């Protein structure tokens, strides 16, 4: 039947509305509208109680760029750059750890693989606050790990390893490692091992084998994993708040502070707007990169 009969079209539309409308409405009413409201707030001025008021202004963006009462200060720009830098560093470290992990799991007999995958994933099922509490326990002053770091000269003896940028990076890697291992494992499972053997027969060095035989085949998994790691890492709040001091805080902390202690909603909203924009740009770049490198479009969103 090429042309749907009017009654059938009507029935289908009704059915479609019945199934799709509750979910779509839920997301529109409780995410799209609040986000638009928040973004609109960025263009208002800061009222006497930290709440946004008219008139419209770009004051919040000026403050975000560092122009305050006392002239220009680079603090907020540093925070933004630090967010990008810490995200990149954590993502690279996650990739470096995830490759051998995924390869190890994929090279075991198939009956063990589910168990090994589960072993990697289970820690991420615990609450992220609890995961950070674990590292706070390990990195507190006087623990064996902290003492070892002090003995090796990384920290001054009475200090623990947290709060520090190091602790934040460890926390980020710990949080997001499974999100890279899973898609990489899926890629390794489909890997054509004859290409690797061919490379080895041609006396390729291990790095050359990886570069020419393994990397191209696992690229879709790598791109998917990068999206799953880098996007939430950029928006991280808990790990930086608990494991890092002011010198490791990221843009999420800057935004949250404007709604809690500092009470400057328009400034916080401007920060949130920047976060959404950077996230969307990041997604777009990764998607383009994935397509250009021949990755599977379906995997990356």
């Amino acid at each position, binding site marked *: 039947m090429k042309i749907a009969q009017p009654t059938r079209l009507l029935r289908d539309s009704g*059915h*479609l509305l019945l*199934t*799709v409308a*509750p*979910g*779509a409405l*839920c*997301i*529109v009413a*409780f*995410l*799209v509208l*609040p*986000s638009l*409201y*928040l973004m609109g707030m960025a263009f208002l001025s800061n009222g006497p109680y930290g709440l946004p008021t008219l008139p419209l202004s770009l004051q919040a963006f000026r403050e975000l760029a560092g122009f305050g009462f006392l002239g220009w200060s680079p603090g907020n720009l540093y925070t933004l750059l630090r967010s990008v830098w810490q995200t990149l560093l954590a993502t690279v470290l996650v990739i470096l750890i995830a490759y*051998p*992990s995924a*390869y*190890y799991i994929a090279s075991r007999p198939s009956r063990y693989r*589910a*168990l090994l995958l*589960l*072993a*990697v994933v*289970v*820690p991420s*099922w*615990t*609450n*992220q*606050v*609890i995961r950070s*509490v*674990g*590292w*706070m*326990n*390990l990195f*507190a002053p006087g623990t064996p790990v902290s003492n070892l770091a002090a003995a090796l000269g990384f920290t001054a003896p009475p200090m623990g390893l947290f709060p520090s940028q190091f602790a934040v990076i460890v926390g980020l890697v*710990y949080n997001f490692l499974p999100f890279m291992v899973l898609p990489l494992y899926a890629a390794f499972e489909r890997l054509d091992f004859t290409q690797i053997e061919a490379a080895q027969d041609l006396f390729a060095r*291990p790095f050359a084998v990886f570069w020419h035989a393994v990397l191209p085949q696992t690229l879709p998994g790598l791109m998917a994993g990068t999206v799953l790691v880098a*996007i*939430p890492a*950029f*928006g991280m*709040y*808990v790990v930086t708040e*608990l494991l890092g001091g002011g010198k490791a805080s990221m843009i999420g902390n800057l*935004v*949250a502070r404007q*709604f809690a202690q500092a009470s400057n909603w328009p400034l916080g*909203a401007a920060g*949130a707007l920047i*976060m*959404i924009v950077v996230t*969307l740009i990041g*997604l777009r770049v990764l998607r383009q990169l994935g397509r250009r490198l021949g990755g599977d479009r379906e995997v990356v*969103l």
Partner: protein
Amino acid sequence: MSGKNLERSLRGFWFALMMFLYAPLAVVVLFSFNSINSSARFAGFSLEWYEKLFANDAIISALVNTLVLAASSSVLAVIIGGLLGYGLYRYRRWRMGWLIWLIYLPVIMPDIVFGIAEMTFFVSLHDLFGLFKPGLSTMIIAHVTFQVPFVALLVNARLLSLDPQLFEACNDLYANPWQRARFFIFPVLWPAVLSSVLLALTLSIDDFVISFFTAGPDSTTLPIYIWSAIKKGVTPEVNAIATLMIGSVFIAALMSLFIHRRSVQKDRT
């Protein structure tokens, strides 16, 4: 590198990885049994902190809130998300790119922005109309909103993996829509619904940021309780609550392993 060396270094690497993944959790569990209040020195075994924990009304009510929030939001999310996933599949030939974007929005939105957007929205609505008082109900709304996409995608993926001819077979057998739902769609979707429930529960219990910003004064959950407690320093009591939560995760992991083993065995026979 020869194969044997590679294998040996891979094993070593895996061992180090397991240490990295489980040391923080193991330390939490160990120090929850510490007889002194220290996270540097283990002085002896004691159940003191667990006794304190169960005598603390604030913790018990936080536990109840956590469970109520997880259970009610998951049920709602599975119904709404399941319908959404089904509609998405059924009308996949219609142009619904905007719907895909809508579904991915909660997934890609940084959760701090998500939480703050909802917080400001609910606070303003409450000021204007007296609706949406921050509390358990606003938390449930927020949780449902971020669970729905995951459920919809899971259900949709399950439907996409089916042979479309099965739907035609139903029509050929003159099944009415109700019969088709009862004898075909529900049975094949059952595993996806079950895993959606588990995923929704996990997402809800794992969430801290969105709960934190949408919570009211009386709707503290366990993660929020832990958060405010560790602002004053990690104590064995915090470790004890965390241990209970880690324990429930391990039980869930064992269950999922068991379900996986059984489904593998089923496939073989």
